Every structure is written in C-alpha cells, then in structure tokens.
C-alpha cells in the first residue's frame, strides 16, 4: 500500500512537472472534425503554419461528443497548456464554467464574443460582411435571377451567414429570389452530404443557379451536386475553389487560420478581451485564385471591391442577424 502510494505520488509529480515545463498551446476542434475542409481545417492550417515557422508543437483534440467539451478544457488546462484555443460557439458554456478555475491559463474562443471573463480572448468574425460580398457575386453571376443558400445546423450563426448573403444579393438585384434551406437542427447536420445534395437539387428545381453552402461537411455534397448539375456554388470558411475548379464561383473566407496563428504566436502573453475581425481586419473576405478567375469578370470584381471599401469606411452598413434576431432581406 505504502509502496503504491509512493509510486502514485512520484507519477503525479512527474506528470505535474512535465506539464509545467511545456507551456504548449492547445487546440480543441469542434464536432465537425479537424479536416472538414472548412472551419476546423482553417484552424488547423493556422496552427500548422505557426508550428512550421517556430518549430514549436501544439496539443490538439477532436471532440466526438458534447460531453467532452468541458473535460477537454480541463485536461489541457491541468496539463499546463497555454493558451487553450477553442473552436465554435458551443464552447461558450463550458468555457464560462472552466475559465475561472484556471486564472493563469489564457483561453481563446473563436466565434464567441459575449462571455465575461478576464482570461479569455474572444474572437468574433463579421461573417455577414464577407457573406454580403459573395452574395453580390452570386447575384451578378446568376442568369436565372434565383440564388440558393444551404445552411448546416439551424443556429443563429448560420442565419447570420445567410442574412449577409441575402443582403448582398438584394443589393445587386432588388428582385432576386433567394431560396434558403437549413440541413437540420442537430449536429449531424454538419456531416450529411446526401441531404446537402438533395437540398441543392431541390433549389435547382426552384431555379437557383448559384448556391452558397455554409454547412461544414454537408457542403461537400452541395458543391459536388452543383458541379454535377452544371451550376455554380460558393464555398465557405476555407478556400474551397480547388474542390471543383471552374465550378466554384468563390469562397467566403473566414480567416480562422489567422486568428489561431496570432493567438499561438502571442503565446502566454496573449491579449485577452473581445476582438472583432471584419473586412477591415482582413478577418473575412472572398477567395480569388486561378481556379475561379475565369468566373469573376472585371466588373464583378470592381463592384465587390467598391462595396468592400464602403463597408470598411462605414458608408455601407450590413445588418447583422444578431442585432434583433431577424433579417431584413430574408425570412428563414
């Protein structure tokens, strides 16, 4: 028994010192998974860039269930990881419960902006501004006067995407018809490409010839079907233009990679508080590369770049869905 105790004590001591010695950053991916070609993958790319540049290493976990959120936070905090970077709005509740218990650990919350804790860096993205720009592009590229939107799980964040998109499309063509669908109301909606395909086919039959997917893994099905049926699609979060070259009009970039990279670079001296990353901060934008260059004409680019400048200068205001939980341009 005493021997056992000694051994356990020694093991614990080793574990503690090992934890304290390495203040590695830790990254917690959301349920979509590290390689969702979208939101979480962007975070991974940011972290990888940091690791490649500095030669540092980081710890990571892909959450498999809701119950793991708080557990993962505590594990990393106990192990001395600093900062602990979390992905997605769903980490807000576990974070508010855990952050106070580890005052010396800095936390980073991507897509969370409403918590009240001194040691959390909260990063919000102006998705509506980026979506507004791709909405304009969609409306200009559409020949039928109908554009589509496929959301993942029906949550305010995704409506926020759709709302900016609808406003952008309406700004180009006030009579445009916008067909918006959500894949589902459970986290399974992020990984159901078959349903994404069917939604896209349904939207095509309603006349849509450009479809914007803000749906994680479900978006793979949307982009695939759009390419099969010969219409254009718009990717989200990461640059998805390469998935179907010449068939993806553009991608709404959400520079999660930059946010993660900056946080890892700052390390333990991370500045906390609420940060907003909009067009001005290059936190959001639209993707233009070799794959979609033939699809974006000079006039389209000029119009979008002007709108971008106007938004940055404050001459053009894109209404956020969060302001009063409704959208002036579309009903969900």
């Amino acid at each position, binding site marked *: 028994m005493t021997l056992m105790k000694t051994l356990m004590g020694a093991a614990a001591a080793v574990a503690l010192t090992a934890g304290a010695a390495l203040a590695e950053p830790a990254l917690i991916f959301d349920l979509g*998974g*590290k*390689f*969702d*070609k979208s939101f979480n*993958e962007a975070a991974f790319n940011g972290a990888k860039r940091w690791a490649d540049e500095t030669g540092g290493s980081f710890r990571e976990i892909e959450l498999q269930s809701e119950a793991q959120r708080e557990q993962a936070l505590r594990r990393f905090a106990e192990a001395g990881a600093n900062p602990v970077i979390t992905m997605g709005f769903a980490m807000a509740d576990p974070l508010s419960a855990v952050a106070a218990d580890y005052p010396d650990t800095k936390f980073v919350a991507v897509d969370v902006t409403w918590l009240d804790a001194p040691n959390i860096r909260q990063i919000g993205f102006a998705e509506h501004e980026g979506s507004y720009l791709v909405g304009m592009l969609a409306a200009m590229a559409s020949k039928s006067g109908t554009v589509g939107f496929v959301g993942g799980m029906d949550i305010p964040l995704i409506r926020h995407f759709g709302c900016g998109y609808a406003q952008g499309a309406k700004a180009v063509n006030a009579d445009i018809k916008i067909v918006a*669908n*959500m894949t*589902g*109301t459970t986290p*399974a909606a992020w*990984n*159901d*490409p*078959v*349903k994404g*395909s*069917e*939604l896209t*086919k*349904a939207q095509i*039959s309603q006349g849509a010839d450009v479809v914007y997917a803000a749906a994680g*893994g479900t978006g*793979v*099905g949307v982009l*695939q079907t759009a390419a*099969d049926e010969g219409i254009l699609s718009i990717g989200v979060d990461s640059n998805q233009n390469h*998935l179907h070259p010449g068939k993806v009009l553009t991608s709404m970039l959400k520079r999660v990679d930059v946010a993660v990279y900056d946080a890892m670079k700052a390390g333990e001296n991370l500045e906390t508080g609420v940060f907003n990353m909009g067009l001005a901060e290059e936190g959001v934008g639209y993707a233009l590369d070799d794959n979609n260059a033939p699809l974006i004409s000079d006039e389209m680019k000029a119009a979008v770049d002007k709108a971008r400048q106007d938004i940055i200068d404050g001459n053009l205001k894109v209404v956020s869905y969060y302001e009063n939980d409704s959208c002036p341009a579309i009903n969900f």
Partner: protein
Amino acid sequence: MDFLTIIQVLDSTVRLATPLLLACLAGLFSERAGIFDIGLEGKMLMSAFFSAAVAAVTGSVWLGLLAGIAASLLLAGLHGLASITFRGNQLISGVAINFLAAGMTVLIAQDWFQQGGRTPSLIGGGRFGPIDWPLSETLANVPVIGPVYAELLSGHSILVYVAFLAVPATWWVLFRTRFGLRLRAVGENPAAVDTAGVSVVGLRYAAVMICGVLCGIAGAYLATALQAGFVKDMTAGRGFIALAALIFAKWRPWHAMWACLLFGLLQAIALRFQNIDLGGVVIPVQVMDALPYVLTVVILAGFVGKAIPPRAGGEPYVKER
C-alpha cells in the same frame, strides 16, 4: 404545388428511399431468421467507405461495389460469429459493429488518403451514372406521362433499380421457396427446424450473409451513386430509420417498400419545403424529420394493428441435449 414540383419531390423520394429500402430488406432477412440486427448502420458505413476507396484507387465503380459488399460481409460474418456461434447478445454485437465501423472507416481513410477521413472525390468511371431509359428524351414533352417517365422512372443509377427489384425477389425467396420457408421457421421456432434435420446455424448464417450483401449495396449506393466519395458518418442514421421502417412494415417485403417510400417522401418534403403552411398552422420542418420515429412508436404501441416480431428473434439457439 404544381405537377412538376410533385414529380421532383417524388423523384427525390426515390433517391432517398433507395438506401433505406436496401437496408430494410437486409434487416428483414436477418430478423426473419431470428437475428436482430441494429448493425445495419455500421455495415452501410463500412461499405460506403470501402466502395468509395476502391473506386477511387482503381477507377472502377464495379470493383468498388464488390469491395463494399465484401467489407459489409465481413462485419456480417462478425455479427454471425458473435451472435450465432458464440450465442452472444445480438443487440450488443450490433452496437459494437456500429462503433467499429464509425471508427475504422475514418482511421483507415486517414491512413490511406490523408484527407481527414475522406476519400478523394470520384470522377468518371468511379461513380454510378444515371441510366436513361430508351425514348426518355422524346417522351419528355408528352403531358403527364412524359415527366413521369423521363424524370421519375428514368435517369436513376442502376442500384436504384436493383433495390426495387429486390423487393419482389425477397418476397419470392421468403414465401415461395423451400429455403424461405425454412428461414422464416428458424425465426419462429428453431427447435422444430432442427428436429426436421435442417441446420439452424447454417440457415441463420445464410440470412446474416444476405443481410451483409444488401447492406453493402446500400452503402455503395450512398458513396458512389448519390455522392462522389466517402465522408465520415455519411450514413447519418439511415440504418436506424431502415429499422424503424422494418417494424413499421411488420417484417413484410412489400410493406417494407411502401414504408421506405413513405419515410423517403417525408424526408423529401422536409427538404423541399422547410416550413409547411397549412392555412394558418405552420408545421416546422422538425416535425417531418421526427415523423418516421413517431409513426414507428405508434405502430409499436399497438394503435394501428400490432407489430409482432419473429418469435425466436434475439434468442441464440441452444440445442437441447
């Protein structure tokens, strides 16, 4: 709602009902022989991955289909081994298969392709293309019959037709052949079958293997016909809806087809019309999503007829000595 919209919804119904139907018939064979199988989901998922992976590597969708069926058969064999030979609990074995498939597919996919648990996108011969029936172009403009023929019946992948042909085939095998009679008997009263000198174990293994083949086709349909590649957890609960359909159909092949078409129709309507406005009352889309399960519970509770499973279902057969 105009006629064309109805055709499109029905078209979508056929596509969505096909994987359910294949899985449902798979479950039918297994459960009629007295082996409960909640591992339909896992077998479909495993087949979806291997069919997509092999199709991506070889460029041949037919090799992919074979690989998918083989993978599904392997899991079916495992289920048989655990629940027939070793007389384990069939439900536990099924759950284990679901977990095994969910984990293994992503793990192997990551090891082979390094694309984060996906397979590369399939192109050209790596997918099942639509089969256009003769004259569908010419007939498309004929009113009423034209759209039905060109949109609804023609233009699906070959696996859709296989699935619907499997319904009469299942009925014939189960109710018109000696094998089918014995298979049903083994699910009701295995002792009697044993007394007649027929191998209970052999029959049950045969049923489980047929189940594996059908699940394999269902998974390959998801990954190589509906989609162009595998994405983690892409079956998204269809194996469980198929089980619900099986109970709804009271373990009968033709009823299974109608149950799957009904559940497919509910999904198609939910996808097409998010919130249905019925003269002031708005039905939210979630109601449509939940309806298959609600209907199943209603049936199980005995409100609409009674769903009686095969009597020996779930019990391993122990020969009396």
